[in-house]
C-alpha cells in the first residue's frame, strides 16, 4: 500500500523560478527521503530528513518536515531545464526493523521550460 501522496501531480514552470512539491503521509516515520527520476531511468536519492528535524538544505534543495501535519515539502530554487524529472517522496516507517522497506509516493512530474 502506498502511504505517501504527492501534490501536485504535475508542475510546469519557467527556468529560474522556484518549484515546490508536497508530500503527505499517514503513519509515524523514522525519516522521509526525496528521490529524483529522469525519464525512463532509475531513481536517485536527493535528500533525507529525520523525524526529529524540521528543515534541511542541500545546494538548491530545501526540505521541510511537519510531523504534526504528517507532511513534507521539497523546494527547488532557481530551477534549471536539467531539473526536469519526476520527484518522489519515500518514508521509512517507525518500527519497520532493519528491512529497509520504503513507502513511495505517487510522484510529482516537474517540467522546467528554458
Amino acid at each position, binding site marked *: 500500500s*502506498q502511504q505517501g501522496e504527492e501534490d501536485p501531480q504535475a508542475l510546469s514552470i519557467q527556468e529560474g523560478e522556484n518549484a515546490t512539491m508536497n508530500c503527505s503521509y499517514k503513519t509515524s516515520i*523514522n525519516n522521509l527521503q526525496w*528521490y529524483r527520476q529522469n525519464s525512463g531511468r*532509475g531513481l536517485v*536519492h536527493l535528500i533525507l530528513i529525520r523525524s526529529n528535524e524540521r528543515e534541511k538544505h542541500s545546494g538548491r534543495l530545501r526540505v521541510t518536515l511537519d510531523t504534526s501535519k504528517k507532511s513534507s515539502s521539497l523546494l527547488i530554487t532557481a530551477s534549471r531545464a536539467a531539473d526536469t524529472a519526476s520527484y518522489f517522496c519515500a518514508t*521509512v516507517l517507525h518500527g519497520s526493523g532493519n528491512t*529497509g*522497506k520504503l513507502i*513511495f509516493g*505517487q510522484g510529482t512530474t516537474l517540467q522546467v521550460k528554458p
Partner: protein
Amino acid sequence: DVKVTQSSRYLVKRTGEKVFLECVQDMDHENMFWYRQDPGLGLRLIYFSYDVKMKEKGDIPEGYSVSREKKERFSLILESASTNQTSMYLCASSFPRHAIYEQYFGPGTRLTVT
C-alpha cells in the same frame, strides 16, 4: 560509488514464457528490492530480501517469485508472463546505516509481454 546493474534495459517476451530479471549490486548491501512502476500508480513493491536466501512479499507479489542465492544478486522471476506484467521493473539495494535505508536503484528494465 554504489552500482546497481540490471541484466537488460529492454526486454520483449511472449505470453506464457518464463522470464528472469537479474539485479546485481557491488556494495555488499544486505537489503535488495524489486519494484514495478506503471503510469499513475507510482512504485509498487513486489518482493524484497534482507539477507541471503531470505525474502518477503511486498504489496503485489502475485505472479512473481524471487531468488537470492548470493548477497550481491537478486533475481525476479515471472513464472508465466502475462500481458498485464508489461511494465518498468526497478531493482534497488540498501544497507541499515543508522536506520536511514537510502536506496540505490538500477537503471530499470522495460519489459513488454506480447
